[in-house]
């Protein structure tokens, strides 16, 4: 896997103001990991243009979004653990 500067873990739906702030601040060297209600970003089709996007598998399935993942990589908990260690820093939004 490539280096990630900051891993942004987002568990808020796109309607939540914190989601907008997270996306605004994310840079091309960063990763975005969607968990919980954060995976609903997949349904809007508005994934950030720069930076890698990941989505937590059980949360994607719970919300019925398996067909809408687009360019996001679906990851499981072991991969979430690995991502959190790989990144230079993690912000939980």
């Amino acid at each position, binding site marked *: 896997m490539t280096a990630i500067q900051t891993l942004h873990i987002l*568990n808020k*739906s*796109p*309607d*939540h103001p914190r989601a907008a702030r997270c996306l605004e601040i994310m840079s091309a060297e960063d990763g975005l990991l969607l968990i*919980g*209600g954060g995976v*609903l970003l997949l*349904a*809007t*089709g508005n994934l950030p243009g720069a930076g890698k996007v990941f989505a937590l*598998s*059980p*949360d994607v*399935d*719970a*919300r*019925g*979004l398996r067909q*809408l993942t687009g360019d996001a990589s679906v990851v499981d908990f072991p991969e979430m653990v690995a991502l959190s260690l790989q990144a230079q820093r993690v912000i939980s939004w």
Partner: protein
Amino acid sequence: MSTLIMIDQPPYGAWSGREALDMAFSLAAFDQPASLLFTGAGVNWLRQAQEASGIGQKSVEKNLSAAPIFGIEAILADRAACNTYSLDESSLIEGVTLVDVKTALLTGYHHTAFAG
């Protein structure tokens, strides 16, 4: 004394969507007219094929399908929010009526409430 229960919080992350359903079912059980209106991120409760077992929860698809049987008058969904979240007739569960959420919609009910 018709009641409109509004749900604008996304599924699974919080309990208030389920608690809103319980309110509507309780009204129906006491023969009080009740409808549900899903808006904002709340429309995502209405997507087909939710598999919530992986997060240790139950999907509410069955409960919502049973709503008419239990006497819930209508399941309404905000058309604009459905567009935002890529929900259309092919992806929505059955029995949902798309509406434009305007003043006139709410004035048709005596009582409007959120669960939280």
